[in-house]
């Protein structure tokens, strides 16, 4: 490590930041998917029986999107 140049350290830091950002978006994306899987099936089931609740059901389905948005915000903070 001692013979690393400044450019190499900076490049490594940039790489780590990019990796952190990728994990933040990727992991929250997966979490959102898992959460939406159940809510989505329930929402489709409820809408199949009562079409009037489509708007409300859609709202419930997108609530877990907040998780991936948090991930995205963290990623953006890391990168910029």
């Amino acid at each position, binding site marked *: 490590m001692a013979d690393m140049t400044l450019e190499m350290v900076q490049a490594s830091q940039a790489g780590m930041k990019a990796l952190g950002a990728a994990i933040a978006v990727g992991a929250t994306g997966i979490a959102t998917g898992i959460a939406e899987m*159940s*809510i989505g*099936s*329930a*929402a*489709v*089931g*409820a809408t*199949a*029986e*009562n079409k009037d609740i489509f708007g409300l059901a859609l709202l419930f389905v997108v609530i877990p999107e907040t998780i991936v948005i948090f991930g995205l915000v963290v990623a953006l903070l890391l990168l910029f």
Partner: protein
Amino acid sequence: MAEKRTGLVPYEYVCTRLRVRKSKLLAREDYLRMLNMSIPEITRFIEETQYKKEIDELGTSFSGIDLLEIALSWNLAKEYQNIQKIAPGDLKRFTQSYLRRWDIQNVLTILRGKAQKIKSGKIKEILIPAGELDRVILDRLLKEESPERVVEALKGYSMYPVLSKWLESAIAEGSFAHMENALYRQFYSDLIEEAMSGFKGGRNYLDYIRLEIDMINIRNMFRLRADRIQQDAREMAIPGGTFGVDEFQRLVNREDHNEFIDAVKSRIKLRPLLDMLETLRQEKSLRETEIELIKFQIQEMESMSKRNPFSIHPILTYLEKKKYEIINLRALARGKESNLPTERIRGFLVI
């Protein structure tokens, strides 16, 4: 118990669908309103609910109570068949096995009808093809001339061994009661076997089956005690629940009502059921007791389906509640047809 999985299945989808359907069932207020209506008014009232299609379809061929009765049967059969179609994976397996009770009911209706030489058309009107035996198979059975031929036509089905074993004595006695008991005993033992076969959700299914067996046994105990018939009650007992067969007989034979309640309570662990049994300590009529027990069973099923929202429980709760809706509407219509007083009809409703 190692669980076998049959893949990722959308339990949420079907459980939510049935929850929504359950919310569309007739409310207590609807029944109270219908108590003050005549049969044509009741028909019009339920035509505005989920029975519209059946009443419209049958309206040209039937009228009055016949229209109502047949429309209700058709609706129940259609609903149950539809649930079997939408239930996924293991839930489908459990739902189908649970609905086999309708096969027993249909086959016994056909056998009784054939033994009493009733016309096929008349028998057909009261069949509810909600189980494994669909309309086509039941039509084939109806074409058979004698009970023996009906039983032969069922070769290969799970109920065949019991039917063939009891048929001769049933015809000789002129009563299918023993056969009926044997069929239900086999039905519940098959359900327990299925629930314990290691499929996902089997534990929940087993919990419900045990509750149902207990409730049926308690109901039967009350009935036998009310009839005061000194006969062997053991064949009326369904094994697999809390009460053993000999214990069932002993409880039925208890002379004192309070002792009987205490003895039943000493074997029950479910706290709400203990409280409910306490209310039955004051001697009530058999009908009131039965309605109380049914209401309790439905309440308990509701709480089970809340505890396990994505399991077989919401499906079974809907199946049972739908069944009692049909039973209520029938009781209401028949009561009105016989000009029974409103209060009396109300006493027959599970609301």
